[in-house]
Structures are given as structure tokens and as C-alpha cells.
């Protein structure tokens, strides 16, 4: 017995469902949000409960510049994706590389801050509850930025080799969804760690 063929007057031709790449990335973002939520909960729960050692107020400085870098990279990646849709390959490449540079500088800023905390203030992941929760949360975020950056650079390589065109714009958009997510997480982490926590 072969497939059912009860033809419908109209819906068969106008049957359009969402793009699976976006749905899957939305699913991944939801799952990752849950992971970050748990780390944020642990961070908030342990605020003020360290038995010893430096407190957030003692050692944390607002990373304003690097935050601006990361958040503006959301804008640049959005513009890059739009350029690719409109087949403006050159503009796309420029904006994409700018995004990567901004993301890279954010990671550099995180590394600098950690060096200062470790060597300047003696705060490590094992120092006290603050150290444990801080490095875990910020580190988890930085890990996600790193993975995103690697993906950005891969796309940049293909673009530089002239292999990227309009027909890839949906996939590029999926990657930019991930990048926006990473930025949104930073907004939360920044607020919790550097604003509320101090």
C-alpha cells in the first residue's frame, strides 16, 4: 500500500514550516540557558557566604570596555548577516572580521582580568566560595565565547576563500543566533557578578 494521497485544495502548495537550523539552534540555546541558570543560581546563593578570602567588592572592577566590545559585536554580526542576505560579500567579510576581532578582544580582556585576580589578589577557583563560583560562571561563558569565535573564524576562512554566498545566509543567521545568545548571557553575568554581587 503506498502513501496516502488525499489531495487538499490549497494547503499542499502553501505548506511552509520553519527552517530546521533555527529551530535546532533555539533548542540548543534553551538547553544552554538552563545550564547557565544553574551556575547563576549557585553564584547568587553563595554571595556573602565565603568563609575567608577576597570578596567581590575587594577585587572586582567593572569590565566596561570589554563589555562594550562584546555587545557591539552583536550589532556587527547582525549587520554582517544582513549584508550576506543582500549579496554584499565584501561588506559581509569586513563586518564578520570586525565581529571576530571584537569577540577576540573580549576574551583577551577576560584573560587580563584573570591574571590580575590570580597574581594580584590571590583569588583562584579554590580560594573560597566566591572564587569557585566566579571562575566557574565567567569561565563557562568565556568557553562559549571561545567556541563561538572558532566557528566565526571557520566561516571567515570560507569567506576569504571565496566560497560563501547568498545561499549560505540562513546558516550564517543560525550562527549569529548563537552569538547573540552568548552576548545575552554576558548581560546576565555582568549584572549578577559585577553589579548585584558587589
Amino acid at each position, binding site marked *: 500500500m503506498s502513501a496516502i494521497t*488525499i489531495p487538499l485544495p490549497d494547503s499542499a502548495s502553501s505548506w511552509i514550516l520553519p527552517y530546521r537550523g533555527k529551530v535546532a539552534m533555539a533548542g540548543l540555546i534553551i538547553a544552554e540557558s538552563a545550564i547557565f541558570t544553574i551556575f547563576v543560581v549557585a553564584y547568587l546563593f553563595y554571595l556573602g557566604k565565603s568563609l575567608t578570602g577576597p570578596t567581590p567588592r575587594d577585587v572586582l572592577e567593572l569590565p566596561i570596555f570589554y563589555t562594550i566590545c562584546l555587545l557591539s559585536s552583536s550589532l556587527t554580526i547582525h549587520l554582517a548577516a544582513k549584508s550576506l542576505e543582500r549579496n554584499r560579500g565584501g561588506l559581509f567579510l569586513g563586518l564578520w572580521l570586525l565581529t571576530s576581532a571584537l569577540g577576540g578582544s573580549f576574551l583577551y580582556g577576560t584573560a587580563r582580568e584573570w591574571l590580575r585576580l590570580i597574581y594580584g589578589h590571590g583569588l583562584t*577557583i579554590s580560594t573560597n566560595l566566591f572564587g*569557585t563560583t566566579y571562575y566557574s560562571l565567567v569561565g563557562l561563558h568565556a568557553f562559549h565565547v571561545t567556541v563561538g569565535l572558532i566557528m566565526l573564524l571557520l566561516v571567515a576562512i570560507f569567506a576569504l576563500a571565496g566560497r560563501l554566498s547568498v545561499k549560505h545566509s540562513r546558516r550564517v543567521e543560525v550562527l549569529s543566533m548563537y552569538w547573540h545568545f552568548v552576548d545575552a548571557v554576558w548581560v546576565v553575568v555582568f549584572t549578577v557578578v559585577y553589579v548585584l554581587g558587589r
Partner: protein
Amino acid sequence: MSMNAITISGVRLEEKPWVDTLHEWLTTVDHKRLGILYIIYALLLLIVAGIEALIIRIQLMHSHNNFVSPQVFNRMFTMHGTTMIFFVIMPVLFGFANYLVPLMIGARDMAFPRLNAFSFWLTALGGLLLYFSFLGGNGLYGAGNAPDVGWWAYAPLTARAFSTGHSSDYWTLALLVSGFGSIGTAINIIATVVCLRCPGMKLTRMPLMAWLNLVMSGMVLIAITPLSAAQIMLLVDRYLGGHFFDTQAGGSAVLWMHFFWIFGHPEVYILIIPAFAFMSEIVPVFSRKPIFGYPVMVAATIAIAFVSMSVWAHHMFTVGMNSYANSFFTITSMVIAVPTGIKIFNWLGTMWGGRIQFKTPMLFSIGFLFQFLIGGLTGVMQATAPFDWQLSLSYFVVAHFHYVIVGGIVFAVFAAFYYWYPKMTGRMLSEKLGKWHFWLFLIGFHLTFDVMHIPGLLGMPRRIYTYEPVRGWDTLNLIITIGAFIQGIAILVFVANLVVSYFNGAQAGNDPWDAWTLEWSVSSPPPAYNFAFIPVVASRRPLWDQKHPEDPDSRYE
């Protein structure tokens, strides 16, 4: 496989070398093959975890027994629980979902076939990693072996100080790895159901199997991940000197409990919802009526998914939360009984006025209905916190959850086997062996788990390798053990049925049960591409419409 082959007289077919078949299966991205791989993997580990259960039961057969040492016993109950939940039930449910969801929505495969394969292998290798602990768990001082911290791995028992060697790390890493596999499959199912439905199959026309697996997958995304997060924290504690759960540094053991149960409670609904899906497909077909109240069945499932995220601390009633917290979790745990109960009533309503056929799938489904009713009610009893202060951590709880997991989920899984094995293999399972399987398992199940409530009520705690004769628990434990062995025999009958029927079973044809969903419109087993032409549907039961053109469902929906 040769049963698919057309025989043309005078033409001799070449036999494919077995290594080629093996290679095909190892590298497959076909959802049907991956589904079968998941199911076979789960069956193998069912046997292993079943043996662990029998070891537990032999040791507990009478007081002061020494069949195994306390160290071995503690590993047995830890591995039994961990294996059953993560490497038996989850894989078998993902296996059926993988096989059936694309077929039921008129698609040719899952949305991401390679991710599908990757997720399966993550799960499979996670299980192997867990079992490698028996060999590799010896760390410094030669301490450690398979994990022995219970499947909840409560802090601070898992801290370096109390859990020397690497046994706890095997637990953590194996579950992290397979957890990522589960998340991958969940993303795949969601993308498939949202994006690959055939024309005409609006969400309100999807089979409940597709709906419920969609809901389950959504839950996986937000329930498995808290466990992954907590496990990363545990690794930070054990290897980087972190203090997440280090009570000596001001850390909280209760925080682990919260994180674990925020995963652990929705997890059991993740396990039961696909079982509900099986029931929602099987009970209608063998009652010869459509499912009663389709919209409410969907709504109730979504309600269960949401409410299940708010009940977790009913596993922590004895931990010393304040009375307001305990009251909150009491009410939410009672509230979740409402949509769950509604589903039972809807299945009853489906059977009511029908023409029930007592084939093996329906026998197991009826068993499910009775047992899930009872298990659900003992759950409501434990939702009342004061009652739970006595019942928690005792064999009453063990009886309750085995009632819902074995009496509920496993019975539903057996029903699913008998119902869909013909589709997957082209052969019917033996009804005779099926009935032997059913009755033996039913008797063994009730002997074990009905009786098990009693030692719990009498004060027998769980996770003890032996007990004192003066407590009077001996006879009860002996009966429980006998029931366990009867269940073991029933499983052997089942496995025999699976194997024997593969070679000797009656040919199934496309639609042996006269059913109504799209998977029954293709051959058994289906061709690799599922559908030659993507179907177009106009109702929830496309094959009913086809078989009854004078009275199609599309007229009533």
C-alpha cells in the same frame, strides 16, 4: 535484510558479507536503524541491570546474609539505578521515538541524521564508560571501583574526602557524556516535529506519539542540563579544588540536592511521557475507537511538563526545609496528579464503548492502567509531607517508584514492542509466548512490588546491605526476591520471543493491527526512504479516512 528481497526465479542474489552489514550499521544515519540500535543497546543493559537487581535481592533474601560484601552491594544498587534510568529506559524511549516519529509525521528521516547518529554513540559510549569503572575505578590507594554513592550521588559523599579513587568520576563523566547525547536527540526530535511534518499535518493533527515526544524533548532541554551543570560543579570540586558542595568551606550539601532533583523529578516525567504516548497509540487501536479527548490529552501533557518543574523538593521533605517550603511542594505535587489522572480517565474513556481486543499489546496496556493508577496514588500519599517523613527513604518509596517505572513504563514499553515489532521486522511476535511473558511478568511484578510496600511501612530504610532479624522483615524480603526471579524468567521468555519470532514469526504485512497512523501505510519494514511520495493528510487518522471514505475523521475535526 533478506526478507525485503524480491525473489525472481532464475536469479541468484549475492549474499552480502557480514562485515559490510556490520559497517553499515555502525555508520548508519538512518533514523530507523538508529532506533533499532538504541533499542538493542537498551535490551542488553536491561539484562545487566537486571542481574544487578537479582544480586541485590539475593543478598536481601534474609537478614544477616553475606552473599556479597557491603562494598559490592553498594555498587550494585548504585549501578542498577544509574543503568536503568540512563542506559535502559532513556535509550529505549529515544529508540522508539527515533524510529516512529518521522514515519508518523510523513517525513523521510529526522531533521539532522548525523546529529542523530552522534547522539546515539554518545549515549552508548557513556554507558560503556560507566561500566569500565568496574575495571578502571581504582585510583590512588587502590580505593574505588564502580560507583557506590547511590544514583543521586549526594554531596558530600562524592567529595574527594569520602569518595576516594575514581568511581564517582566515572559516574559523573558517563552521565555528562550521555546527557549531551540526550540533548542532541531532543533537539533533533523538536526540529523534526516542528519542521518536517507532511502537508496537511497541522500540529493539531499530529499523532499523540509525536506530540508527547515533542513535549518530552522540550523537558529534556531544561531538565537534563541542570544535572550536567551540577556534574561540572562536582568535577570542579573534585579536581580543581572548588567548593561548590564543600561543607567545610561553607558550601552546601543541600544545593546539590536541589540541583539534582530539579533534574531528577522532571526526569521521571521525561520517562513516563513517552510511555503515555505508547498508550495513546495502542489503546485506541485495540479498543477500535479514537483516543478520547485528543486536545485535552495534549493540554494535560503540557501541564504535566510545566508543573513537573515545580515539584522537585518533594524528594527533600526530610532535609529540613521550612514549613512554607514543605507546604509549597506538597501542593504542587498534589496538583500534578490532576492532569495525570485526567489522562487515565481519557484512556478509560477510549476503552468505554469500544470493542476491546486482548492481544498482547493490549494486555500490557491494561496492566499499565491499573499499575500506574496505584503507583500514582501512592505518589499522592507521599506528596503529603508529614506522611512522607515516615515513608521517605524507606522501601515504600522504592516500591512506589518501581510501581510507576516497571508497572507503568516497562509495561508500556513491552506493549510498544509487541505493537511495533511487526513494523520494524516484518514478523509478528508470538502471541503464545507473549501471553506467557505477560502473565509471568505480572505475577512476579505484583509479588515483588505489592509486598515491598510493607517493609517500608514497617521501617525498613533503603540502600542497606543487610538488616537485623529482630525487625521482622525476613519473610517479606524473601517473597520480594522470589517475585524478582519470576520477573527474570519472564524477561527470558520475552527475549526468546524476540529472537524466535525474528526467524519464524508470521509475516506481518503493512498493517497487521488495522491501525490508523501513517507508519502502517508503508511496508514492514519500511523502505529506507520511508515514503515514495510524501503523504498529504486531512485528519488525525489518515488511514481511517482511507479505509472509511464514507465516514472520514476529517468531517468531525
